[in-house]
Each structure stands twice: as structure tokens, then as C-alpha cells.
């Protein structure tokens, strides 16, 4: 006990110690908030029958979205053969694993009967999109667990204490291409289905459109890749433990810039189609976004800072080559994806569509997350930051000098079935 205290006293005033203490405060507060939620129930949130999904769902959706770098980059590296991005795939895989852990924490808090979460794996309504999402997330988490094993194997302590186990875990890396296939399939399914969870709800016209699934998928890839690049650069600036190849990141940044153009194009037509004619509920919902209480989120969070400005930065060579501008662009893209998730979820609830005949007057409700929702939510984010920091410090999660063991890249010829062999 004394030695532990001594170690703490010696290390607390280092930047690492202060960072841990800072995150620790949020984690401790969240722990208390979480226990309170399990004890008192969801009544202490500001969720209502009219707004049954709020901040936690946003955190859940956003963590899954920004974890999408894992499957995107693994597919790029191990399936499409862009080997030079392999160090980024390592970072993305770790972020992915962290992101899905965060999502599961948020979900566990959010469901009314957390002790029965396992029932979602036992009882199947295959018609439900949420069933499909549950299954894919469960399976993909398993894939991530396997993918993250070689990374955990680089933990010094594990290597010295249990070299055999570390070796076995390291060996998992041989299956990276196979895992990438599973990852791509499962992620493509559930990332888009998460959009469809909203997109199939006929009762809420602002959601009810086919492009919801495609937009969720696309924004997930954008946000996931942007976050991977952002935290790689950030880590490299903050600690000597992280080493990045700036050329690599810059090249990826340019690709991301072009993808942002595609995204803006998509959003423009989505916007035009939705606003062109009056549709009860949809038009009112859209006005909440463009003129109402969500307008700041929409215009600044999603559009100007979330899409337009980062696109310009990433496509203008001089700005892109300046690390600070580039990092800013990545951060704005991630923020834009989170804002998109938040707005999409909440706008469907705020405009209450009437069911009374002849009366098409749309009513409005409001939602502000309660203190306990914020505390628990911030704690989940703090957990993510902690996990990533530990990864950088002990697991060489961001290390572009790492050249991993050689393995085959799956080559797919047209007309040939994909097998992992």
C-alpha cells in the first residue's frame, strides 16, 4: 500500500499522471452516476415517453460510427492490398475495439432492464433491424477482440510474464485478411442498419427515407478514418511513444477530402428532396434543424464546420500540409458526424406528429439531457480516452515504424469466390 501511494505521489505531477487524474475524475463521477441509474432507474434521466432516446443513444451511435475506421482501414490494407496503410489499420483497430466497448456501456445504461441484455441474443425477431444490429455488433465485437489480440500481445509485461500466451495472441495477426472480410461484412451490415433503424419508421416522416442507411454508413467511414488520423497525429505530438509517418497521413487526408465532396453532394440532394414540397411532420422537423433549436448544431456542427471547411482544408494542399490545419479538419469531421447522429435522433422526436383526424398541426416537445446523463456520458468518453492513452503508452498503438510480420494479402479475381485461403 505504501509503495503504491509513493508511486502515485511521485508520478501524479507528470503530464501522464495529471492526464490520468483528470480522466479519473470523470470516470469516478460516471461510476457514481451509473450506479445511481441502475439503482434508481431511468426516472432520473430527462427522457420521456415522447423522447425515449436521448444523449446516451447519441454516444452509442457516435462511438460505433467513429469506430468504423477499423473495418474501413482493415479492408483497405488487407483486402484491397494498400499495404502502406497498415500502421493506420493497427491504430484504427484499437480505436474500433474501444469504440464498441463504449457503445456497449452506453447501451447497458440506456436499456430499461440492463440485467436482461443477454435476452437480445437469445430471443430473435429476425424482422427487426435492431435484432440485426444486435447480432452484428455482438459478432463484430468478437472479430475486433481477435483483431486487437496481436496489439495487446505487444504489452511488455505480458511478453515477459507469459511469453507463450503473447506469442499465441501475436499469431492472430496471420488471420488479419480473414478477419477483415468478416469485419467488412458485419460492419457494412450494421453501420447501415443503424441508419435504417430510423429510416424504416413510417410514423416519423423526417426519418422515413431510404438514404438514411447509406448516410449512416458513409458518415461512419468518414468519421472513423478522420478520428484514426486525428488521434494518431495528436498522440505523436504529445508523446515520444507514438511515431507517425506524416506523408502517409497526408495522403490519406487527401482521399478523405475527396470523400467529403461525395458526402456534400449526397447531403445536398437529400436536403433538396426533403424540402421541395410540404410534408406534414417532415417539413416541421426540417425547420427545427434549419431554423429552430437545432439550427446551430445543423449549420455549424454538421454543415459549415462539420463538412464545408474541413473539405476545403483537406483539398487545399498548403493547408493540408500544415499539421495543425489538418488535425483541425479531422476534428471537425468527427464533430460533424457526432452532430449528424445527435440531430438525426432528436429531430424525429421533437416534432410530434398528431394522430387526430383532420388536425395536421404538428406539436413540439423538448429535451435537455439531465446531469446524470451528462456525467455518465462524459465518463464513457473518458473511458475511451483512457483506453486509447494506455494503448499509445504501452501497446504501441500509434507506431508507424512497426513493420509487422509478412502475411498474404487476399487477391480476388473477378469471377472467383472469396475464400480466406
Amino acid at each position, binding site marked *: 500500500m505504501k509503495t503504491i501511494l509513493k508511486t502515485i505521489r511521485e508520478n501524479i505531477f507528470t503530464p501522464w499522471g495529471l492526464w490520468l487524474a483528470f480522466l479519473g475524475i470523470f470516470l469516478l463521477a460516471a461510476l457514481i452516476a451509473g450506479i445511481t441509474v441502475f439503482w434508481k432507474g431511468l426516472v432520473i434521466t430527462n427522457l420521456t415517453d*415522447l423522447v425515449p432516446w436521448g444523449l446516451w443513444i447519441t454516444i452509442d451511435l457516435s462511438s460505433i460510427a467513429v469506430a468504423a475506421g477499423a473495418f474501413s482501414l482493415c479492408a483497405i490494407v488487407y483486402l484491397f492490398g494498400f499495404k502502406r496503410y497498415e500502421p493506420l489499420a493497427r491504430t484504427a483497430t484499437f480505436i474500433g475495439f474501444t469504440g464498441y466497448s463504449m457503445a456497449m456501456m452506453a447501451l447497458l445504461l440506456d436499456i430499461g432492464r440492463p440485467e436482461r441484455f443477454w435476452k437480445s441474443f437469445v430471443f430473435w425477431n429476425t424482422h427487426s433491424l435492431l435484432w440485426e444490429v444486435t447480432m452484428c455488433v455482438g459478432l463484430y465485437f468478437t472479430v475486433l477482440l481477435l483483431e486487437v489480440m496481436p496489439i495487446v500481445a505487444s504489452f511488455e509485461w505480458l511478453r515477459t510474464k507469459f511469453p507463450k500466451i503473447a506469442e499465441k495472441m501475436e499469431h492472430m495477426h496471420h488471420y488479419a485478411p480473414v478477419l477483415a472480410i468478416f469485419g467488412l461484412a458485419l460492419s457494412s451490415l450494421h453501420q447501415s442498419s443503424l441508419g435504417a433503424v430510423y429510416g424504416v419508421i413510417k410514423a416519423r416522416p423526417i426519418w422515413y427515407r431510404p438514404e438514411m442507411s447509406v448516410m449512416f454508413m458513409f458518415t461512419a467511414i468518414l468519421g472513423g478514418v478522420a478520428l484514426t488520423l486525428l488521434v494518431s497525429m495528436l498522440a505523436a505530438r504529445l508523446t515520444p511513444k507514438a511515431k507517425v509517418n506524416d506523408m502517409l497521413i497526408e495522403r490519406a487526408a487527401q482521399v478523405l477530402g475527396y470523400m467529403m465532396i461525395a458526402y456534400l453532394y449526397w447531403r445536398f440532394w437529400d436536403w433538396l428532396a426533403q424540402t421541395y414540397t410540404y410534408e406534414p411532420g417532415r417539413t416541421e422537423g426540417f425547420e427545427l434543424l434549419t431554423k429552430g433549436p437545432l439550427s446551430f448544431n445543423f449549420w455549424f456542427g454538421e454543415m459549415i464546420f462539420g463538412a464545408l471547411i474541413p473539405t476545403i482544408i483537406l483539398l487545399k494542399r498548403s493547408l493540408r500540409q500544415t499539421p495543425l490545419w489538418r488535425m483541425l479538419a479531422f476534428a471537425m469531421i468527427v464533430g460533424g458526424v457526432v452532430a449528424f447522429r445527435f440531430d438525426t435522433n432528436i429531430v424525429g422526436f421533437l416534432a410530434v406528429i398528431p394522430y387526430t383526424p383532420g388536425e395536421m398541426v404538428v406539436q413540439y416537445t423538448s429535451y435537455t439531457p439531465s446531469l446524470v446523463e451528462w456525467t455518465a456520458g462524459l465518463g464513457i468518453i473518458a473511458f475511451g480516452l483512457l483506453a486509447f492513452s494506455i494503448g499509445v503508452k504501452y501497446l504501441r498503438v500509434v507506431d508507424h515504424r512497426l513493420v509487422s510480420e509478412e502475411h498474404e494479402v487476399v487477391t480476388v479475381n473477378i469471377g472467383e469466390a472469396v475464400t480466406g485461403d
Partner: protein
Amino acid sequence: MAQNKFNRRDFIKLSAVGVAVAAGAKFLTKEVKASEGAKGEHQWVMVIDQSKCTGCNQCQMACNANNDINPDMNWTKVLNVGEMNGKQVYLPRPCMQCEHAPCVEVCPVGASYYRDDGIVMMDYDKCIGCRYCMVACPYDARSFNWEKFEGENPYVPQYGEPEVERRPRGVPEKCSFCYQRIDRGMELGLVPGEDPAATPACVVACPTGARIFGDLNDPNSRVSQVLRENPSYRLRENLGTNPRVYYLPVDENAIVEG
């Protein structure tokens, strides 16, 4: 690769085994056929005559007592929807027991399901509390148990005695057409819609007879007759949910699609 004890081929074999196990699990778990709908002998429907509804709320109070509902919640709600020829017009709204119920379609665990007689039921033991059904319901017919309902029910015993168990914290609940009264009544040989003991509590409680209940499969039932002889409408028919609650409008000209 050759010296590895566990090579990629083995891994694929293992994956195949995994898929087989998952498929096996699928046969073992009871799957809910969400979109099949009900094809039972009886098809229960409710008809609500808006000309007769005075907005007295007796139906809601009887419902809260018989189903032991938290007084902060309602399974049936009486809305004041305006004025016609100097008379207030009300719209009582129970669960619509849709033929194509969005809540049943979206429930990931199949906790919402169709009975053969068309009633949309909740399995409160299966429910994990995700609230997707509440998100999907076009009629706002579901209430969530944000906290446990403890203490006395203010409507008991004046408006009735509890006939079903209180729901636990963390699940949404909704009107069930008083399935417990229908089932018990039929066991005793009673006819739902005619014998009060076999009829939903709200129908029995209505002092003006604005609510009518019965079997749409029986051409001689009162609901069948009333629906044959009068113009009626249902709520948000454009969504294609096919509700089992029909409304007789105050004035024929008042039929407007929701």
C-alpha cells in the same frame, strides 16, 4: 504458414462450425414471425362512437384500476379534439391493436407479438427495455415504466379491482384490450362484447355506451352490424397499419384521413 499448428484452413473450418452453431441456436430459440399477423377464429375490434363520447374519463379510470396502471400513465387517453356545432368533440385513444403493428415489427426480441385473435401483446419478461417500440408507434400508445409503480392505486377500488400483475420498472406497457377479461370470460362460456365480465373494462365503464366491442369475424356481432351500417374511420390509415379500433365520426362530413 505450414509450421503453424492452427492455420487459416483450420480457422475457416472453425468459422464454419461457428456458423453451424449459430444456425442451431436459431432452431432452438423461438422465432417470432412478426409480419404474419393473426388468423384466429375471433378477431376482436373496438368501435368508438364520437357522437356519444362526453369526455368524462370513466373509461380511463376503469382501465387504470383493472390493469393496475400508474396514475401518471394511461393506456387509453381521452383527447379533446375541438368543437363541432357547439359541442365538444372527444377522441378516446386506446392501443389500436394494428394488424401490421410497427411495434411488433421493430421489437428486437419479439417481446411484442400478435395473438391469434389480433391483440398485440407485450411479454414483459422478454422485454429488455430498448424502447424501439415507442419510437415506432404512430399512436403514442405506449408508456414506459421510468420508475417502479409502488403504493396505492387511487382508482382502486372505486373504479375496479386489479386483474393483472403490475409491470416491472424498465419496460413499456400498453393497452391489451383487457385480454385477461376476454380469456377468462370465454372459458366461462361468456361472449366478449355482450357479457360485461368478458368485455374490456373501458367498454363496460362507459356511461353513454360510446365504446362497442366484439368479434369482426361474426357477422351478427354488434361491431359488425355497426360498421356495416355506419361510416367509420381509423387513425392514420395512410400508414397501412390497419388498426382494430374504428371511430364513428360525429358528423358524416367529419371523416378526414389522419
